[in-house]
């Protein structure tokens, strides 16, 4: 199971309502599914919490599948200032009833009036990396110095 901790900078990026958040999952037959999920946040334990607002959605099916078999789902966060973070994790809990669920039910309606919360998922983190292009470009230059066109280097001597 995951136990990766994330920095406050990334927590802030995930919790920022202005960030774009997409969730990628795999179905029982191996089909990929990638959709925006604006209700992704970080909970008090540092795990990902996501509100599933459509009970019949493919994501709901796929995240349950991942929970059953200990498989990963992936999330990408794009901040308003164009930083990107990729987070992977394993769903460990699906909350669909009870007083705690009912608090989230009302919170979901505050966020999106008339929404109908289907489930609250908790996802333990296994991998976190920044995917912003300047950061990844610098990593590529460091780790794979041969992966560059020569015209980029010409005239630099």
């Amino acid at each position, binding site marked *: 199971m995951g136990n990766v901790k994330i920095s406050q900078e990334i927590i802030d990026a995930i919790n920022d309502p202005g960030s774009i958040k997409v969730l990628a999952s795999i179905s029982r037959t191996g089909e990929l599914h990638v959709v925006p999920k604006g209700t992704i946040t970080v909970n008090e334990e540092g795990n990902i919490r996501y509100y599933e607002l459509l009970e019949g959605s493919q994501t709901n099916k796929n995240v349950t599948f991942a929970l059953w078999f200990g498989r990963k789902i992936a999330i990408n966060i794009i901040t308003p200032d164009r930083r990107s973070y990729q987070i992977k994790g394993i769903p*460990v*809990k699906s909350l669909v009833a009870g007083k705690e669920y009912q608090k989230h039910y009302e919170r979901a309606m505050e966020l999106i009036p008339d929404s109908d919360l289907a489930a609250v998922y908790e996802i333990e983190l296994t991998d976190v990396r920044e995917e912003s292009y300047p950061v990844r470009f610098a990593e590529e230059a460091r780790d794979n110095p041969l992966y560059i066109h020569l015209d980029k280097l010409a005239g630099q001597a």
Partner: protein
Amino acid sequence: MEKPKARDPQWREKEPSYKEVVARYPDLPATWILKADLQRRGLYYTEAATRKIDPAIHATNSDVATGFRENRDYVPEGLIWKDGSYLIANFDFDQKQPARDPYTIDVVNDRIVVVDEDEVLEEIEGFWEKPDFYDKKASNGEPLRKYVQARPQRLDISMNHYCHFWDEPGEGCKYCPLSPSYLAAGKKEERYDFRYVKEALTEAVKQKGRFSAIMLTGGSQLSGSELLDDELEGYLALLKIIGEIFDGDRVPTQLISSAFNERQLERLKNETKLLTYTTDIEVLNKEKFEWICPGKARHIGYDEWKRRLFAAVDIFGKGNVSSGVVLGVELAEGKGFTDEDEAFRAVTEEAESIISHGIALAANIWRPAPKSILQNGKAASLDYFVRTYREFDRLQHKYCPNPYTDDFRRCGAHVGLDLMRV
């Protein structure tokens, strides 16, 4: 209460273990197989687990209306699994001489866990919580929970507490403890006054985010101008009460009743806001049905029951009709199948003939219930249930009936339908 011991101390040597079944079906979640085995073998709460129950929070022993309960100890109505699904754990396990050793619900490191042979197999999220209306009273001073019961997301109304297929000696369904429990308890009140049902429903739905469906059921009533007409009139009256509480043309409701004919079904569809209809064929084999459900066989018959199921699809629509099955009772000692492979072939072939009509099969696990005619029997192996559920799931994914009123979160009694979540 001490943990009950299995009638046959060598039972583990005679069938595949939980772990062997898990290894045999890697495409099925191990936690789901454990749930199935809990329903088959039963469970026992340690003192530490019992101390985790808070009557101010949790639902305990509230199904007084149905009369199914065998265990009157202080136990929760049900468990909630980490994947959000439920385990019905409140009644009808044999607490005295079970065929197999029950699982133990214990507490380790302050967490509620499932234990077998001193090994922790799974952590459980918690117990079912009681709804707000359970602490309130009807206008007659009786607790509202007497009239309507709650699962974590569903309201249950038991219209008739006695089944009249038991009127003739030997005609009751052999697996069912409902009417024997009713008679043993000396009860006289077959039905409660619907006024108080309405009061309970009105109060219950004030709780935000708690309920998403209403289920009506009860024992069969054969009387009336035509067979089952009195039962029909009762449900019509209850459904009209529900219709007064909710807006819209249809309300997320499920009626589990005797097999009504087309005229009766049309009335349900046209005069109420009922959304889904269920009539339980119970046994997926005509010959075994006639032995196990003789009253149903004599008054309606297997072929006619099935035909009425199909007719219900024409009236309520594909996806809005389902049928309950008491899976495994076809292997009961007496006139049941004696070979699990033979039973598997017969049951799955019959299942396809029903599922292919767009009818979901809500199959629960038969375990011999105390006070039922088959109370001294022995449930099938875990492998049989898992293999059969797996085939049902393949068929249901193929033909796509919608089992949602009997699914993992509204009902929780039919573990096989959990597989339709993915």
